[in-house]
């Protein structure tokens, strides 16, 4: 049934419609739109759900008949240039479609509750829909131009959404950082695209791959240039997927609302880089040098992310580094050529990480009212603990997500991660050991996060850290007072905050066990937030079986790989062995994982060896008890590997210095040139103006004079 393929454009179109409608209405009828906020939310969720149903349908079609469907519509038509836009459906696309739409719908439902008291609620939905639309468009793109357009759109949406609370200076900085970092990658991507257009003369994937293949086989292309272009192209995914040199924006991007972190910075947008590399896999495959670079970038990122994540106190930033590390895994998998393992991990990780992020959002949402609205507080794990008692569903789902991400057998990520580790062992022992160690680290930090957040006692009420005046969500307080009539939501929040502040003061005076009623305890979030968590648990649990090697069918039974296989015929032999082999491999990694969990349990678990109900920063316990080497590592990790500092020194200061010298050069030489030219032209203009006196005889004279000039031109043109 090819019928459904013709309507694929609906999938990105519906969310786009939603965003446009919301945006337009918000622009022209702000009041009524805000009063109808729920309806708009439901509207956009509905449209996205329709898109989701469509994409499920497409996935089903793809599983059944496995046709690569391509639809093209010529956009700019000329006999030299021929840009076409359209869509391309293959298994990769259909999986991504399902992934994006499901996570999108769930995140929308979730954020309906999460954002319900925010004054930018409707705007948020508009952005969200626009993001979903452009992400879907990116996935469906059949050529590079379209990919680039949607790539930029996605980046822009991410910029808007990270800076959603733009009055908060840190959010504004973060979104700029993200945007600028991504611009570097986009620039590289654009150069790469143009370079490959130069080499092959096409933007269409299929033609491009084919031509490039021919060229490489016939040695008709300069390999250095091709490698260079491929590296430039790879710069895009590096930035978008937060790989090693350009990863710095991802943790800061956690300034955005948590649903955004779940959707964009864990499940979909960061996966766009991986997706692009996967799309380009046939091309990168021909360039072994680039493949090596990809794999090493992936490995370094994985390791770095994991080590940095070890000591983060911020819940979301910890998860962000974890995301980075997992993306590194995927990149590693793609780099070593195990295409389907990388994609498999992309899918499993997307669901698990979305679950974790939404869980953390739920935690933050409920802790927020107690600790304070500043992200330094409500996301600080030092103030959490024992939350499982108060919010059991969140706790359990979070635990499941943690299990999955660590790679405990029945859960999703186990299957994919294990495959990657096995493949990397097969590829090179160095990469294999890195990935294995990273797996252990992953287990350690994930359980550290879990234990700190959900086990033990709630440390907020133990804590006597003096609260500084909070940075409000919507900027300074006096700013809100000006338009206090409008910002009722904000004021409500302030009221709550003042209450808590008073409570805090009172708890200082009282002993905290005596008056439980005065103490606030976090409550379980409402159903709208729990529903997505529960739904996401399902894929976290079961999606792994899609790619799990079942014993009975031997090699061919691996559903996913069998299914992704025909996409790229040249993909190397699928390396999943039989059950026994797989199990043996798994034992290896599992042992590492469990040791990581064990250490985490010892250090941070509820029955830990070290008493941690101290009011001070918990991490000091670690420093006391372990030797200075670990403290060094800890510090390294805590300060994010000092990379930001180095960046600051090298790039920011260096750039400033360069800029100053350049500006001097510019001011006196370039500007002098330009100004001189401008002045010159101005004088010329004036002189021309006065040249035309308005005498007819003069005009006639000019006419004949011009004719003679033309005669000479014709004459000399004929001569030469």
């Amino acid at each position, binding site marked *: 049934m090819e019928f459904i393929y013709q309507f694929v454009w609906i999938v990105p179109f519906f969310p786009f419609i939603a965003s446009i409608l919301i945006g337009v209405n918000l622009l022209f009828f702000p009041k009524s739109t805000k009063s109808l906020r729920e309806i708009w939310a439901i509207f956009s969720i509905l449209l996205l759900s329709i898109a989701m149903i469509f994409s499920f349908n497409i996935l089903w079609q793809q599983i059944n008949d496995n046709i690569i469907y391509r639809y093209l519509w010529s956009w700019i038509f000329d006999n030299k240039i021929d840009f076409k836009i359209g869509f391309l459906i293959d298994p990769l696309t259909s999986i991504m479609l399902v992934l994006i739409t499901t996570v999108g719908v769930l995140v929308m439902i979730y954020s309906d509750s999460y954002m319900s008291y925010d004054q930018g609620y409707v705007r948020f939905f508009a952005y969200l829909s626009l993001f979903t639309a452009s992400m879907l468009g990116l996935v469906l793109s059949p050529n590079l131009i379209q990919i680039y357009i949607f790539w930029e759109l996605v980046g822009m949406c991410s910029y808007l959404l990270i800076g959603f609370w733009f009055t908060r200076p840190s959010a504004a900085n973060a979104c700029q950082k993200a945007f600028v970092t991504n611009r570097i990658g986009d620039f590289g991507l654009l150069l790469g695209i143009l370079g490959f257009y130069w080499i092959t003369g096409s933007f269409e994937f299929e033609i491009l791959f084919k031509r490039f293949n021919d060229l490489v086989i016939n040695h008709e292309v300069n390999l250095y240039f091709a490698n260079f272009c491929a590296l430039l192209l790879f710069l895009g995914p590096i930035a978008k997927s937060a790989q090693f040199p350009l990863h710095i924006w991802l943790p800061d991007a956690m300034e955005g609302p948590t649903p955004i972190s779940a959707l964009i910075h864990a499940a979909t947008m960061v996966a766009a880089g991986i997706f692009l590399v996967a799309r380009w896999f046939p091309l990168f495959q021909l360039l072994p040098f680039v493949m090596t670079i990809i794999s090493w970038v992936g490995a370094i990122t994985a390791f770095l992310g994991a080590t940095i994540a070890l000591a983060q106190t911020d819940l979301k930033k910890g998860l962000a580094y974890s995301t980075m590390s997992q993306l590194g895994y995927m990149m590693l998998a793609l780099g070593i050529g195990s295409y389907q393992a990388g994609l498999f991990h992309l899918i499993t990780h997307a669901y698990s990480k979305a679950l974790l992020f939404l869980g953390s959002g739920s935690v933050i949402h409920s802790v927020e009212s107690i600790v304070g609205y500043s992200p330094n507080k409500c996301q600080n794990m030092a103030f959490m603990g024992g939350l499982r008692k108060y919010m059991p569903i969140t706790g359990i789902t979070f635990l499941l997500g943690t299990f999955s991400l660590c790679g405990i057998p029945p859960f999703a990520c186990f299957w994919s991660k294990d495959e990657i580790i096995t493949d990397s062992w097969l590829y090179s022992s160095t990469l294999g050991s890195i990935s294995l160690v990273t797996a252990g680290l992953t287990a350690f930090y994930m359980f550290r996060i879990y234990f700190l957040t959900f086990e033990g006692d709630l440390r907020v009420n133990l804590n006597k850290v003096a609260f500084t005046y909070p940075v409000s969500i919507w900027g300074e307080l006096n700013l809100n007072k000006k338009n206090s009539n409008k910002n009722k939501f904000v004021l409500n929040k302030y009221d709550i905050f003042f209450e808590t502040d008073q409570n805090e003061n009172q708890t200082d005076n009282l002993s905290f066990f005596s008056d439980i009623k005065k103490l606030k305890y976090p409550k379980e979030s409402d159903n709208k937030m729990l529903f997505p968590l529960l739904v996401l648990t399902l894929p976290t649990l079961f999606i792994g079986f899609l790619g799990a090697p079942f014993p009975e069918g031997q090699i061919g039974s691996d559903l996913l790989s069998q299914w992704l296989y025909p996409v790229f015929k040249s993909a190397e032999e699928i390396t999943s062995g039989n059950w026994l082999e797989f199990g043996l491999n798994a034992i290896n990694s599992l042992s590492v994982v469990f040791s990581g969990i064990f250490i985490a349990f010892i250090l941070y678990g509820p029955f830990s060896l070290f008493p941690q109900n101290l009011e001070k920063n918990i991490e000091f316990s670690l420093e006391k008890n372990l030797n200075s080497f670990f403290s060094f590592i800890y510090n390294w990790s805590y300060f994010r590997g000092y990379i930001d500092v180095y960046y600051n020194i090298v790039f920011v200061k260096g750039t400033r210095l360069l800029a100053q010298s350049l500006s001097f050069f510019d001011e006196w030489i370039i500007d002098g040139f330009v100004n001189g030219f401008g002045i010159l032209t101005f004088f010329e203009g004036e002189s021309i103006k006065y040249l035309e006196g308005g005498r007819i005889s003069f005009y006639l004279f000019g006419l*004949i004079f011009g004719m003679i000039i033309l*005669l000479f031109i014709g004459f000399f043109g004929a001569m030469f």
Partner: protein
Amino acid sequence: MILFSVFSSIALVSSVMVIRAKNPVHSVLFFILVFFNTSGLLVLLGLDFFAMIFLVVYVGAIAVLFLFVVMMLNIKIAEIHENVLRYLPVGGIIGVIFLLEIFFIVDNDYIPILPTKLSTTYLTYTVYAEKIQSWTNLETLGNLLYTTYFVLFLVSSLILLVAMIGAIVLTMHKTTQVKRQDVFRQNAIDFKNTIKKIRDI
């Protein structure tokens, strides 16, 4: 040939005189002389009808109109030629170059129609000149203008229409301040009604 040189040389000289004459009336008269000579040239070419038309239209209408205008405007004689020498060098050079341009053309010839490689010996052709009954200029013109090329004729009629409209638009003022002749009213006016006795003296 002699006639040709006579006509053309007189035409050239008198056209120079049109520009150089100090008195506008003289220059218009020289202008008329140019027309006469050119119509003479036309007659030499065998275009008798055109020669007549030339005389009738240009001399009979346009030149006379010019004369009227010149006489009505009463231009001062001395004004015109103050800066002749100033422009002479540049103008002269350009004029020379322009003449050279024309000179290149003079020794050129009618270009051959498509060079064909086919042998043309076997082709028999008829001499149409013998078959055509000799028509006068006027007949030929009429035949062509009113049949084959009637579109051009229509377009030129449109040009005339535009000229007429233009002349009317640019000269006729419809405002009330302008004095205008109203022929019917003038004719209808009766002497007895025009002058009235208001009161007895």
